[in-house]
């Protein structure tokens, strides 16, 4: 499970999180990606296409057969964001359910 909890605009860090997910997928791991905390902002489409929208790369993970693609609902609520505006097809998960899901993983990244 990869937990994305840092905000966008750290293009380098975003890129390196993505590479980690892609490397795990290439090694035929079952990968679950969770957006949590400030990381949920990756999932909003930018109002105008900025020079480099590295976060869009998380969308390509869908093509690579990510096992589960989750967003923590409480992080959205805390930021007054609704699920209807998100650009990726994400499954909502409560903070409570995430706590239990963490325990079923082989690895947390």
């Amino acid at each position, binding site marked *: 499970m990869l937990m994305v909890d840092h*905000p*966008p*605009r750290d293009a380098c860090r975003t890129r390196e999180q993505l590479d980690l997910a892609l490397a795990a997928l290439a090694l035929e791991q079952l990968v679950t990606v969770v957006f949590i905390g400030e990381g949920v*902002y990756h999932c909003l489409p930018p*109002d105008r296409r900025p020079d480099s929208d590295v976060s869009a790369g998380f969308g390509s993970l869908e093509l690579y057969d990510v096992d589960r693609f989750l967003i923590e609902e409480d992080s959205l609520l805390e*930021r*007054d964001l609704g699920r209807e505006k998100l650009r990726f097809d994400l499954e909502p998960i409560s903070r409570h359910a995430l706590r239990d899901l963490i325990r079923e993983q082989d690895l947390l990244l």
Partner: protein
Amino acid sequence: MSVTHLIFATPRTPGFRQALAAVSTGDRLLFMGHGACAVTRTDALTAIGDLEDIHVGVYGPDLESRGLLGKIADEAVMVLDEDGLLAWMTANRLNRTWQ
């Protein structure tokens, strides 16, 4: 003398709380970088709302790149372009960055 607070800290962080604790009448709160999202969050704006007579601005491109331009939760927030950014940055002699 009034102070311009350059706020890169996100809401609910120690830097954010320190910034608000340092604000006084007439100050400018300028939200930028990861801090820009504060103007879309009611928890953050409520904390700011308790302060009297302060100016709140946000650097537009930092909101736009996050898809948050239409989500500002208070009409009094000024959305600034590059020139507005400079005007706010230099409006007071005193400024402080909060990370």
